[in-house]
């Protein structure tokens, strides 16, 4: 770090090197190669710092690209919208994105088969050996008793209190508990993070449903009150089912799709 503005002063007194422009151009031209080399070869703290810097740059880059794209799209969507809209909604940017959900639900309900159709009808089974890990417990001398620890992510309700340690059969590790899910609305194509209310059904085993195990294909109830959805009778809908689409134990997050 310069302790003074001596570089600037020198430049003002003597001007730049004669080949400055060329050097700058070449450096710029090779910057991609340099970045690639750094990314591949840096180790340790420097690699970390470099990765962080690069991450920030990329975010910035993506934002800029998106801005440019939006600017381009605007001219493309200037033409009239396809669904009829009243005068006061005509020139608005995205008035049609939020199609009222309630009607969609109503239509679905009418065809009875839809009641049992979920996005993921079949999932791979998980054996109890994989699900539970046995832990020996008890007094130091015997360690005869044993408990089972759930090795998969779980949802534990806010009102859960542990049973006395002696009678506790299952351990659900704190680190694998989830309270929120990233829920996608299939028709709107929007994803919102919503609090989980309960686990409705785990297709593997009724026991897993009781334990609140979150695996792929599990149906959970999520709190949709902040989406402002309304039921056919005009009440605000707040609990709605969603099915988990990813494998939370591998991904570290819960992604789900709303059942409509």
């Amino acid at each position, binding site marked *: 770090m310069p302790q003074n503005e001596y570089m600037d002063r020198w430049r003002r007194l003597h001007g730049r090197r004669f080949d400055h422009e060329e050097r700058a151009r070449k450096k710029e031209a090779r910057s991609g190669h340099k970045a690639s080399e750094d990314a591949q070869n840096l180790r340790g703290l420097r690699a970390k710092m470099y990765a962080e810097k690069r991450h920030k740059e990329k975010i910035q880059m993506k934002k800029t690209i998106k801005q440019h794209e939006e600017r381009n799209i605007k001219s493309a969507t200037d033409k*009239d919208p396809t*669904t*009829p*809209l*009243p*005068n*006061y*909604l*005509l*020139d608005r940017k995205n008035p049609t994105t*939020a*199609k*009222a959900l*309630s*009607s969609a639900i*109503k239509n679905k309900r009418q065809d009875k088969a839809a009641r049992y159709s979920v996005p993921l009808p079949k999932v791979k089974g998980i054996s109890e050996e994989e699900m539970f890990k046995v832990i020996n417990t008890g007094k130091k001398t015997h360690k005869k008793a044993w408990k089972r620890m759930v090795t998969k992510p779980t949802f534990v309700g806010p009102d859960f209190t542990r049973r006395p340690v002696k009678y506790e059969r299952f351990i659900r590790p704190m680190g694998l508990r989830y309270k929120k899910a990233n829920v996608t609305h299939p028709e709107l194509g929007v994803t919102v993070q919503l609090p989980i209310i309960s686990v409705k059904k785990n297709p593997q085993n009724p026991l897993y449903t009781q334990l609140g195990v979150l695996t792929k294909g599990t149906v959970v109830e999520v709190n949709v009150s902040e989406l*402002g*959805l*309304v039921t*056919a*009778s*005009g*009440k*605000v809908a707040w609990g709605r089912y969603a099915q988990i689409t990813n494998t939370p134990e591998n991904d570290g997050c819960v992604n789900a799709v709303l059942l409509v």
Partner: protein
Amino acid sequence: MATVIPPPNKRQKREQLERTQVHQDVHATALEAGSFRVRFIDNEQNQLAEVVEIPLGDASEKNVSLLLNTLLGRDREDFTPYRFRIHVPSSDTIIDTYPTPAEFMSILRKHGVNNPFETTLTLSAEPQAVFKVQAVTRMSHKIPGHGEAILAAQFSPRSSSRLATGSGDNTARIWDTDTGTPKYTLAGHTGWVLAVAYSGDGNRLATGSMDKTVRMWDADTGKAVGRPFTGHSKWVTSIAWQPFHLWEDETPRLASASKDGTVRIWIVNTGRIEHVLSGHKGNVSCVKWGGTGLIYTGSHDKTVKVWNAVDGTLARTLSAHAHWINHLALSTDFVLRTAYHDHTRNVPHTIEAQRAKAKERFEKAATRQGKVVERLVTASDDFTMHLWDPEQTKPLARMLGHQKQVNHVTFSPDGTLIASASWDNSTKLWSSRDGKFINTLRGHVGPVYISAFSADSRLLVTASKDTTLKVWSMATCKLAKDLPGHDDEVYAVDWSPDGKKVGSGGKDKAVRLWMN
């Protein structure tokens, strides 16, 4: 170590509480025996009657209203119900809702009037409509028919038995609301019908469409009248009829606003363009034809322009908004729309008499401090509204409070209230006298698109994206009735001028009629 007295136990606490409550009650009843002096004023701050003394126990709003009528020397048949607002002495506060006799003292005390017996209270009396509209409570009919979303709806000024709707299926339809059946299908447009407007006498219906034309229909037979009015280069956003009392020798005129930035004035009988009002630089979102011969237009170029209808010249440009103007409303909208049709249903037989009655109604509604002047309110995308006196280029008031774009504003038929519907899921009420905020109506969970007052100004119905209509009471500023039933967004709502029915339509394609 000092001895600490144990805290009182539950029984002791309960007894203590009971003692204090009993004591307070005795105190309150003792006070209620008093009386207070009252000065009545009207909207323009003129004193209405002598100062009188009223016993506190009898000071209900109904009694005071009766008293005022007697003081004014009215016959029993001419009694007008009044609504009172209490002006707190020696401060600017006004209590909007009149309390019951039991609450009277406590409310006054809350506002710092400890001894009203020695001061004179000022009550501003607002005459209410002599008729009363019942809040609609149930869906009477669901009439399918339109093939696409319903974009506009308006009741006929004559009665509540005809409703016209414009739809995305390129037709407008007239419905017989008494039987809940379709009456006429007005086919002819080649684009969505964005605007429908009945003429003041209710004989003709004008529709404006996405296909850049305005068409004229006979409201009684459902037949097209004349050729379509062509001239606009983009779609028609809004239509305004010339007020009935300004019609000259049976040649009504019509103003249509368009996305192309112009407003065209048509002579309805011939379909000829009389004037083209060009000057706006963007989409003209709303046009209104005032009863004093001025045309008001609001545009996406952020300005409101006031035009002389006779020669088509620009009178004034009102610019104060920072974003699009979405909608504008006149304090006389209701009387201009209904012309000579009022709650008595006495329709004059000759055209001269009809014109005279329409003019009289208009002047009664527009007179403020002896001057016939309309008020204008504009709703904008900059989250604010402005209240204008069209004679001045500076707004009378700026109404702040909404947190998102304001989509729609309406004046109450008696011209005292303004309701604004906004994207922030709320409707707000404002005083039309000075643009002061009165209350917020919360309840919708989606943007509120449109609102409509009942003819007696006591109720308001709002339509929202959340698929419901809600009826609000203006006296209490509370929800009077929730009306679910639509399957999808509600785009259009109208309360019939006689107050019997509410018609609504939206994305779910069926017209719904609501009754008490």
